[in-house]
């Protein structure tokens, strides 16, 4: 199987993500340039963290209009797997592939720290290698990670079990204190109703090697591999 990591001007986690997928997880991985139209036959598109287009206008707002993102939108509609990390999550929200929007963090601070998140749903292609209730220690680094959606949308995503990760404390309790950016319902990661597109604010690629303090992020990449290699066919 093959991963594709999208590069926008201002992406800064693209190479880290590429390294983890290729060298640590050990799967074929290519870079996808934002101006191209070709997804190069990848099975999973990863939108990496960073500050695409300098976060001008709103985080992710300009990146969504790039030529490649039109292909990514069509790919997702065909059932292809898309993973958005941090800025990638923001782009998926702006693109409308995921519901809701991001507001500035509740304390108006850029947050760069390890957090704990809890797997809320383990029957997804992004978490099947993990267990419901499992606590992952993964870093965040963002200014706009305060997830917002109208109440009706929150009701829908709860009912459809689209909430994949919630911020929690080290004991796995979802508390206001653990919800560092003020996200509604403590949402740290969210998927679409179909289950093929997920965005999360924490950076699993920064927590995939023991040398860097945590390997917990690997579970997301391994889940995708399990989901796709077991199916034995491409979504496209």
């Amino acid at each position, binding site marked *: 199987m093959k991963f594709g990591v999208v590069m926008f001007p201002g992406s800064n986690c693209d190479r880290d993500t590429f390294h983890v997928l290729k060298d640590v997880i050990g799967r074929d991985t290519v870079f996808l340039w934002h101006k191209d139209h070709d997804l190069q036959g990848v099975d999973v598109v990863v939108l990496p963290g960073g500050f695409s287009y300098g976060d001008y*206008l*709103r985080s992710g*707002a300009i990146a969504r*209009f790039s030529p490649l993102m039109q292909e990514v939108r069509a790919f997702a509609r065909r059932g292809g797997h898309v993973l958005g990390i941090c800025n990638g999550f923001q782009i998926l929200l*702006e693109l409308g592939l995921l519901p*809701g*929007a991001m*507001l*500035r*963090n*509740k*304390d*108006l601070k850029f947050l760069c720290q390890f957090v704990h998140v809890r797997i809320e749903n383990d029957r997804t292609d992004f978490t099947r290698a993990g267990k419901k209730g499992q606590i992952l220690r993964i870093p965040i680094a963002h200014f706009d990670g*305060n997830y*917002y*959606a*109208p109440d009706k949308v929150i009701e829908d995503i709860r009912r459809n079990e689209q909430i994949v990760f919630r911020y929690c404390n080290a004991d796995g309790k979802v508390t206001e204190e653990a919800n560092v950016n*003020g996200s509604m319902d403590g949402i740290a990661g969210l998927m679409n109703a179909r289950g093929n597109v997920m965005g999360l604010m924490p950076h699993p690629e920064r927590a995939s090697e023991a040398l860097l303090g945590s390997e917990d992020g690997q579970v997301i990449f391994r889940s995708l591999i399990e989901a796709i290699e077991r199916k034995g066919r491409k979504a496209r």
Partner: protein
Amino acid sequence: MKVRILVSFKDSVLDPQGQTVKNALHTLGYRSVKEARQGKVFELELDKISEEEARKLVPEIAHKVLANPIIEKYTWQIIQDE
């Protein structure tokens, strides 16, 4: 023609930056400030366009790009005719 578009958070959306501004104003003694909301201003210069066309074009641009309709609203006006 020049138009000005004002984008701000919907009333239902918390505006932490506006709130911080309000708190700062209170600290400075401006107790009469009841609420503060922060927004963005865009000025677009439109070439060879009638007012009627502008009334169609500007809301389209505002809705599609300048504002995120999930959290933001906008108003606009013509500030300079051709």
